[in-house]
């Protein structure tokens, strides 16, 4: 592997300053499960790796008791999320997604922020955060800015982050009562594989436990970047949710998707699976809501 100098600042400001001093040849590194591969393969040739591991606030996973807002530091590992009972109970869609990213060895080191920043079309980590209306807090030389997670992605492997900018954390608004959420990474095998299709559904019901107050249908590998199936969501909003309408939503979501043929699978197969999985994930949401009541 090409030689580089490794630095590990303890604050975001220090990291940005250091990057500024070596802007052409420096790159940030989180868990490293992607960056090290890139450096080993020669796709990236930094002279300086600026580690974000020692920046404590970036590794915090915290639910604010007063606001009920969940804050996930960008350096929180997939395994930390997977093992958190709070995540498992209250945000099952996150658990579903992170528990099948890479392998346990990768999840023990790889971070949720790194998964977002990589911006692969499959981004398992992004789908649940988009469904949960997550906001990403970015910190750059000119200070902080906040963007919706769904707007982070520009193209495959490309985000809106400016040079030197750091994704600091993701915040999720409080969960409405009667909310269920689920994600499926659908593919040939779960581990060490990118999905053929990723489908995340979130449903919030009114107090009658039948009418849809909010629907989110998010798809991975269905377009160059993670996408929301807005038309399918619109169909569900305000309606009584049952299997029939979820079948309809699946069809619409499949039509909205911009799937294509790739080495992992054909477009028609992907469409079929979106159709099937939107229904299944929707039913799973209803099941979760029912179990909580």
């Amino acid at each position: 592997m090409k030689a580089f100098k490794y630095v590990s600042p303890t604050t975001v400001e220090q990291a940005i300053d250091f990057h500024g001093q070596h802007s052409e040849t420096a790159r940030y590194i989180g868990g490293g499960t992607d960056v090290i591969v890139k450096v080993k393969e020669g796709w990236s040739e930094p002279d300086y790796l600026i580690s974000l591991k020692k920046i404590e606030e970036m590794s915090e996973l915290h639910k604010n008791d007063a606001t009920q807002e969940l804050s996930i530091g960008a350096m929180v590992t997939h395994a930390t999320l997977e093992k958190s009972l709070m995540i498992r109970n209250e945000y099952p869609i996150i658990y579903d997604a992170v528990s099948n990213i890479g392998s346990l060895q990768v999840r023990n080191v790889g971070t949720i922020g790194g998964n977002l920043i990589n911006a692969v079309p499959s981004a398992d980590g992004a789908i649940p955060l988009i469904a949960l209306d997550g906001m990403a807090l970015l910190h750059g030389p000119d200070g902080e800015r906040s963007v919706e997670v769904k707007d982070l992605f520009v193209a495959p492997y490309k985000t809106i982050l400016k040079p030197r900018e750091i994704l600091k954390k993701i915040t999720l608004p409080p969960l409405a009562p009667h909310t269920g959420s689920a994600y499926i990474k659908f593919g040939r095998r779960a581990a060490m594989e990118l999905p053929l299709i990723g489908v995340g559904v979130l449903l919030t019901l009114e107090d009658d436990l039948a009418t849809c107050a909010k629907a989110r249908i998010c798809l991975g590998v269905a377009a160059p970047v993670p996408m929301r199936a807005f038309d399918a969501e619109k169909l569900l909003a305000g309606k009584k949710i049952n299997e029939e309408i979820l079948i309809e939503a699946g069809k619409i979501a499949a039509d909205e998707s911009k799937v294509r043929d790739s080495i992992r699978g054909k477009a028609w197969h992907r469409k079929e699976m979106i159709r099937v999985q939107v229904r299944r994930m929707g039913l799973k949401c209803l099941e979760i809501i029912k179990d909580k009541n």
Partner: protein
Amino acid sequence: MTTNISFSLNGDEISYDVKDHWTLLHLLREKMGLIGTKEGCGNGECGACTVIVDKLAINSCLYLAVEVDGKTIETIEGLASTEGSLHPLQQSFVDNGGIQCGFCTPGMIMSSKALLDENPDADREEIKHALAGNICRCTGYIQIFESVEAVKGMGGQNE
């Protein structure tokens, strides 16, 4: 480009001058002569290089040596007792046919140890989930799962 780090390796306190770009695997195999840990793909796909860092199974081929400063590392060399008797997991892999060519075995055993240290009663599904990042091209995995199940409840400890 050189950093002095201190860490615990299989119970020994180590101080070492490492190059910033060395992986932990490089340090262990090429510099310290601990060749029990294997290099398979070198890209975090196969799990042959699995070691335990602060109780977590990790791919040492993707972990920078400089990052183990202050941490506790366990490798396959640390499992057998100093008198030479095998760790229960090692013995179980021998007894249950969990080894064929042996290349994946150190990684398999370290992943299994991390699992059982944390969850001594892991069931088959949990074992599969924990070992999903360790590829074996010989056994078909069944004997490996059986090897791990045979030591369940023993906590993966030496006693």
